[in-house]
C-alpha cells in the first residue's frame, strides 16, 4: 500500500501543515467577520432595525462559514491526532468556554428576530456580542499559549496525553495580549464588511470602529513581536530530524532559547512577508476606512492582515505545532505528530477534490447574495433574521 503513494511521508506532512494553516486562515477570513459583526453589534447598531441590518448581512452565510471551523477540527483529528488529543483535552475548560459561545451563536442568529418582545431581542443581542468576543478571545489565548508552550507530555509506555496545567494558568499576560489581538482582528474584519455592505449610520460607525480596531491590532501585533523576540523562549530540535519516521513525539531532543521563534525568519527571509502583510494590511484597512473607501479592497486588505498574523505564528513555530513547556522534548512537531502515511495521502486526495468545489459554490452563494443590506431589503426578504 505504502509503495503506491507517489508522495513521500515527509512531504505529505509539510503539505498537511500547510493545509492546516489554510483551513485556519479560511476560518479566520470567512467566519472571522461573522464573529466580528456579532462582537460589534452593540457598538455599530443601536436600534432594532439597525441590528437586524447587521445580522442579516451575515444571516445568509454564517452557517457555511462556521463549517471552516468544523472542518479544521476534523482535519486536525484526521491529520494530527496527537495535536487534537493533547490540545483539546489540555485546554478542556477553555474549550468549554469556546463551545458555550459557539453553541449560543447559531441560536442567537436564528431565534433573535422570531419573537417581537424587545427584551427577548436585546437579550439575544447581548448573547451574540458575548459569543463573538469570547470565541475570538479563547482562540487567541489558545494561540498565545501555543507560542509560550503548554504543559503537555505523553506517557512513554502508552502515549497517553498528560497535561499538568489548569484553566487559570492559560491567562498569562502574553496569552491575553494574543487573545485581545484576536478580538481586535475579528472586529476589524467584521467592521470592514459592515462598512462595505450596509448604509447610513451602521456603515459610518463601522468605519470608525473598524479603523480603531485595525490600528489597535497593529499595536498589539508589534508588541507581541517584540515580546516573542526578547521575552519568550523558542524551541528548536537538536537531534537529527527524520521527516519520514513513525510518529513518536518522545524520540527527539529539544533546546530552548529566548528569541528562538525568530530563527526561521533568519533562515528563510521571505517569511518576513507574513508579518509585513499583517501590519501593512491592517494599516491599509485603517486608512481606507478613514477615507470612506470601504469596498472590496478594504476587505482584501483586512483578510491579508488576518492571514498574515496567523501565518507569522505558523512560520515562527515551524516545525513545532504544539511545543511543550513541561517537557520540551515531548513537544509536537510536523515530523512526529501526524497520522500515517496512507491516511495523510487519502485525506489529501479528498481535500484536493472537495475544497475547490466548496470554494466554487461558496463563491456562487456570495454572488447571489451580493449587494447592500438595508432596512428596506430585510423587510422584503422572506425568512430574514
Amino acid at each position, binding site marked *: 500500500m505504502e509503495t503506491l503513494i507517489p508522495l513521500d511521508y515527509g512531504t505529505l506532512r509539510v503539505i498537511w501543515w500547510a493545509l492546516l494553516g489554510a483551513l485556519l486562515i479560511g476560518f479566520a477570513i470567512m467566519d472571522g467577520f461573522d464573529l466580528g459583526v456579532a462582537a460589534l453589534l452593540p457598538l455599530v447598531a443601536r*436600534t*432594532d432595525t439597525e441590528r437586524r441590518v447587521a445580522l442579516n448581512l451575515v*444571516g*445568509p*452565510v454564517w*452557517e*457555511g462559514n*462556521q*463549517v471552516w*471551523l*468544523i*472542518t479544521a*477540527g476534523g*482535519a486536525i*483529528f*484526521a*491529520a494530527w*491526532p*496527537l495535536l*487534537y*488529543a493533547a490540545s*483539546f*483535552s489540555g485546554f*478542556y475548560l477553555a*474549550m468549554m468556554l469556546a*463551545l*458555550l459561545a*459557539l*453553541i449560543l451563536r*447559531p*441560536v442567537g*442568529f*436564528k*431565534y433573535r428576530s*422570531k419573537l*417581537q418582545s*424587545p427584551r*427577548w431581542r*436585546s437579550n439575544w443581542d447581548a448573547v451574540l456580542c458575548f459569543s463573538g468576543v469570547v470565541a475570538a478571545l479563547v482562540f487567541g489565548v489558545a494561540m498565545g499559549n501555543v507560542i509560550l508552550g503548554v504543559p503537555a507530555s505523553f506517557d512513554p*509506555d502508552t*502515549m*497517553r*496525553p498528560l497535561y499538568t496545567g489548569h484553566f487559570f494558568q492559560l491567562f498569562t499576560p502574553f496569552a491575553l495580549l494574543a487573545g485581545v489581538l484576536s478580538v481586535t482582528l475579528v472586529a476589524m474584519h467584521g467592521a470592514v464588511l459592515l462598512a462595505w455592505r450596509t448604509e447610513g449610520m451602521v456603515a459610518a460607525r463601522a468605519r470608525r470602529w473598524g479603523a480603531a480596531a485595525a490600528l489597535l491590532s497593529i499595536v498589539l501585533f508589534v508588541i507581541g513581536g517584540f515580546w516573542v523576540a526578547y521575552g519568550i523562549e523558542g524551541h528548536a530540535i537538536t537531534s537529527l530530524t527524520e521527516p519520514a519516521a*513513525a510518529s513518536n513525539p518522545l524520540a527527539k531532543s529539544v533546546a530552548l532559547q529566548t528569541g528562538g521563534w525568530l530563527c526561521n525568519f533568519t533562515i528563510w527571509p521571505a517569511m518576513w512577508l507574513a508579518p509585513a502583510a499583517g501590519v501593512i494590511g491592517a494599516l491599509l484597512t485603517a486608512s481606507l476606512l478613514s477615507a470612506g473607501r470601504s469596498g472590496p479592497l478594504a476587505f482584501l486588505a483586512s483578510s491579508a492582515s488576518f492571514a498574515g498574523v496567523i501565518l507569522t505564528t505558523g512560520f515562527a513555530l515551524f516545525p513545532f505545532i504544539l511545543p511543550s513547556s513541561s517537557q520540551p522534548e515531548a513537544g509536537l512537531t510536523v515530523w512526529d505528530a501526524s*497520522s*500515517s502515511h*496512507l*491516511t495523510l495521502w487519502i*485525506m489529501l486526495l*479528498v481535500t484536493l477534490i*472537495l475544497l475547490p468545489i466548496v470554494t466554487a459554490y*461558496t463563491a456562487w*452563494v456570495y454572488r*447571489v*447574495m451580493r449587494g447592500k443590506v438595508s*432596512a428596506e431589503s*430585510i*423587510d422584503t426578504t*422572506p*425568512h430574514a433574521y
Partner: protein
Amino acid sequence: MIDFDVVNLSRFQFAATALYHFLFVPLTLGLSFLLAIMESVYVMTGRPIWKRMTMFWGTLFGINFALGVATGIVMEFQFGMNWSYYSHYVGDIFGAPLAIEGLMAFFLEATFVGLFFFGWDRLSKLGHLTVTWLVALGTNLSALWILVANGWMQNPVGAVFNPDTMRMEMTDFAAVLFNPVAQAKFVHTVSAGYTTGAMFVLAISAWYLLRKRHIDLAKRSMVVAASFGLAASLSVVVLGDESGYLTTEHQKMKIAAMESMWQTEPPPANFNLIAIPNQEEHKNDFALEIPYVMGIIGTRSLTTPMLGINDLVARAETRVRNGITAYETLQHIRTNPDDQDARQRFDAIWPDLGYGLLLKRYTQDLSTATDDQIHQAALDTVPNVAPLFWTFRIMVAVGFYLILFFAVAFVLASRGHLDRNPRLLKIALWSLPLPWVAIECGWLVAEYGRQPWVIEGVLPTYYAASGLTLMDLVISLTIFLALYTTLLVIGVKVMLHAVRKGPEDTHAPQSSAAGMPGQIPLQA
C-alpha cells in the same frame, strides 16, 4: 491511575450530549427531504400553495436546524476533550470520516441552507429548487460519514495496530467506507429521520385540521407526509439494522444481550417476548418465549446455532489470555524495536490486544494476572442486559406501530378523508413524540450495547478517557445541563410560537417600531 468517576461522568456527558444532539438531527434529515419534495411539486405544478407549504415548513426546519448545528459542534470537539486517548489511539482512522463529513457534507448543507432562506427572491424557481435538494443531499451525506465513523466503532475493519506509534492505523480506506455495519446503520438511521420528519408534519397538520385552520395547507402536507412516512417507516424496519449485527464477535454479544439469551439454545432459538433478566446470576427470572422466532431472525436459518452470553464469555476468556501474550509481545517490541521475530508474532495476535487491556483495571502488570482477574475481565464483556432488552423492545414496538399508523393515514389520505376523521387526527397528534422515543432507544441499544468497548474488541471505554479532574467534569456537566435545558425550553417556545402563528407571513418578521426596540407585545 484511571479515575473511574471521571470516566463515568465523561461517558454520561457524551451520552447526554449525543442523545440531545439527536433530538434535532432526525428532524433535519426528514424535513429537508420533505421540503425538497414539496418544492418540487411547486415547481412542477406552479401552484403557490406548495410554495407557501415549503416556506412554512422551512421556518420550522430552520428553528430545528439551529439547535442541530449548535449541538453538533460539541460532538466533534468532545472526542479530543474527553476522550484524548481514544483520539490518539484511533484518530488515524476515525478522524478521516469526520473531516470528510465537514468537507463533503456539512459545507454543502450549511452553505446552501442560508440560500434556502434568503434566496427565494434572488433565484429562479429551478435554481431555488436545486438549492433545496442540495441541502437535503448535504444532510444525508452528513449522516453517511458520521455513520461510517460510528460503524467503525462497532466493526473496526481495515486497520492494524502499529507498535511504533502505539495506535491503530488505517490499511484499507475502502474497507472502512464500505463497512457493512456502517452501510446498514446509514440506511436505518436516515429512514428513521424520514419517519420523524413525516410524523412531525403529520402531527402539526393534524392539529391545524382539528382547529380548522389552514385546511388547504394541512391537508396537502398530510398527503405528502403520510406517503413519505409509510415508505420510510417500512424501510426503517425492513432494511433495519440486523444485516450488520452478526459480523463481529461482540455484535453477537450485543444481540445476545438484547435478547437476554444467557445460554446457547438448540437451533432455531426461541424469542423472549418478555423477560426479567438477572445480571448477577446470568439467567432470566422470568421469560415469555416464542419458539423458533429468534433463530430465524438472527441467523436466517433453522440449523445455525446462536451463541448465548455464557458461551460468548468463555470465548472472551480465551481472548483475554491471548491478549496478555499480545500485550507482553508489544512491551517487548517497545524495548527491542529491532526484534523482527517479535513483530511477526505480534502481527498475528494484535487483534486480542484490546482484550488484554480489559485486564488493566484489575492489574497493572498483566503477566501476573490471576485466573480470577482473567475471568472477571471476560465477564466485563457482557453489557448491562436489562436496559438493552427493554430499550430494544420499545424501539421495535414503536417501529411496528408507526408502520400501522402511516398505513392507515396513507389510505385515508389517498381517499381524501383525513380531515373527516378527528380520531385519527388526535392519534396523529399524540403519536408525535414516538419517533424520538424509538430513535433514542435505538442509540442506547447501539452504543450502550457496545460496552465495555469504545472500539469493539480493540479499545475498552474506560481506557480511552482523558486524564481530566473531577472538577473539570463537574463544571462542564453543569454548563451543559444549564445551557441545554435553557435551549430546549427556548427552542420549544420559538417552535410553538411559529406553529401557532401558522403559515401566513411567517417569512417576514417585522421590524419593531422605529427607534429603540419597539413596544409591540409578543404575539400569541
